[in-house]
């Protein structure tokens, strides 16, 4: 494309505006995390007059942040791994086979995106409790319940993306493998998955983000043993004080894994979306 002076100027302007909008809140978070509590609760200063890194030390003591972090990490990773696995199988089935009920399944799975969370929140909770009463598997206040819930939340989007991705991959290679005597599942593992790693990476990161940031169901399904960061961060606000600087510091600490993972994999995410989700 030609790059005239005016188009360069408009590009710079556009990028500058967008960058400012994105950076402004991020800057606020970072700068507030290194101010002493009195300063951060007072007039907002662009450049802090006192800089302190104490908040980064105190956040671990004010609330059991490490405990919540480990909980969130465990739950999110488990939910991601399982969600991706289940989605791969389901997407393979939909994209490679024609079977009765295929359309219904696809439609239903997509339709679940419309369900308002508050509608099935309490029934889900009651079902969990009843499962525990009847067959003894603890789902409320356990990691299991939350993992199962989160993996299901990201399932529709994952399946949809992977179907698109798989469909874009020609079947020749798999058919060759089948001729060689591989089972369909074997072909899935040996051929399709290695080629689809970018798409799978994209799906995995979305699933992780979903689990890491979920608030509503965590507020009902967790107890202090299984509490996640989403709910735990609220405890920086107590009866007499909102420890804003610690809250901001904790926010950064909490966001790092997911942002870094996202950024590290962004190339794959874009290529995953390019090949997959775009062709729906």
């Amino acid at each position, binding site marked *: 494309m030609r790059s005239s002076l005016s188009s360069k100027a408009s590009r710079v302007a556009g990028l500058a505006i967008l960058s400012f909008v994105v950076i402004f809140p991020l800057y606020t978070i970072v700068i507030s995390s290194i101010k002493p509590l009195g300063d951060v609760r007072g007039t*907002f200063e662009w450049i802090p007059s006192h800089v302190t890194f104490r908040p980064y030390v105190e956040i671990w003591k004010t609330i059991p942040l490490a405990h919540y972090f480990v909980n969130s990490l465990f739950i999110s990773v488990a939910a991601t791994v399982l969600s991706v696995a289940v989605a791969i199988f389901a997407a393979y089935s939909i994209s490679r086979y024609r079977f009765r009920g295929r359309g219904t399944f696809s439609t239903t799975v997509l339709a679940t995106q419309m369900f308002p969370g508050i509608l099935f929140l309490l029934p889900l909770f*009651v079902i969990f409790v009843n499962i525990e009463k009847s067959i003894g598997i603890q789902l409320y206040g356990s990691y299991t319940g939350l993992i199962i819930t989160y993996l299901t939340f990201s399932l529709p989007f994952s399946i949809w993306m992977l179907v698109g991705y798989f469909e874009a991959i020609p079947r020749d290679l798999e058919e060759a493998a089948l001729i060689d005597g591989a089972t369909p599942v074997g072909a899935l593992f040996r051929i399709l998955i290695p080629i689809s790693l970018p798409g799978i990476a994209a799906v995995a990161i979305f699933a992780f983000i979903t689990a890491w940031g979920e608030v509503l169901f965590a507020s009902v399904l967790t107890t202090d043993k299984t509490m996640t960061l989403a709910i735990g961060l609220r405890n920086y606000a107590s009866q007499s004080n909102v420890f804003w600087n610690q809250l901001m510091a904790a926010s950064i600490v909490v966001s790092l894994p997911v942002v870094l993972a996202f950024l590290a994999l962004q190339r794959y995410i874009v290529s995953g979306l390019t090949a997959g989700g775009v062709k*729906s």
Partner: protein
Amino acid sequence: MSVAEKNAVAPALEGVRRRRSSRWMGRRRLPYLLILPAVLFELLIHVIPLLAGIGISFLGLSQFFIRNWTAAPVVGLDNYKVALDFGSPIGHGLLHSFAITAGFTALVIGVSWAGGLAAALLVNSEFRGRNWFRTLFLIPYALPVYVAVIAWSFMFDRDNGAINRLLVDDLHVVSHRPFWLLGTNAFWSIVMTTVWRLWPFAFLMTLAGLQNIPKEVYEAADLDGAGRMRQLRYITLPMLAPVTGVLIIVMFLWTFNEFNTPYVLFGKAPPSSADLLSLHIYVNSFIDLNFGLGSAMSVLLLIFLMLSTLIYLRVFKVGGGSRA
């Protein structure tokens, strides 16, 4: 394999497949087995609770019965009558909330899509440092939602927030120190916060879509003398149509159902101008322990979303059609 080779092999393949299928027991069952885990999880987490939720909407499930649901009286359509009685305060409140949410959704989708498109166009051309920008623009989406909303609520504080510091103290754009979490401004606050979080998603999808448009098309257009605006209108947008179609409906469903942002921003008592539907229903059920009514309202929301999606898919023929 070349076409000729493929044709030669095809009958042999077919034979192999038939033999394989008798050797691989349950080959016909395989697709069902593969989707079985997904089906089970969807049933347990989405479908059955949803049906239960619908069932509750026909019960008078209030605080007297949450201990023992089976004892709750069946009230038929009473909860729906209350929710839809727009003359009475509850129905009126629901309608008001619905209107606010519709306006909110339209605005958020519009701005996010436009911003995403602009950013994708900017980042898509070759220039040094484009990867940095792409990385930067994705951060708001990658942040956990509560972190983003807490940051914005901190910025919206009237006396000590960054926004008023910028607008009033530094730029002197406004003199009367505005409230952001009260009154009409609360609507703009929640729009801003939601757009900030959502537009990277539009950016991402649009960028992926742009990268699917072959360069040759633009080069041909350049040769023909078409300017940037014409290219945008006649090449880019039409070729983005499949992506845009999916993007809009996904953003619509997510935004209309949005609960986390208003909940973290306003808590359990949102100002009337920012009374989004999901939070409104939550406040009217969990806080009051009137789950029958809350479920009825949620079902109405679900029906609306289903109808909108159906109409959208019909009109814009998204998702069923051609494969590129």
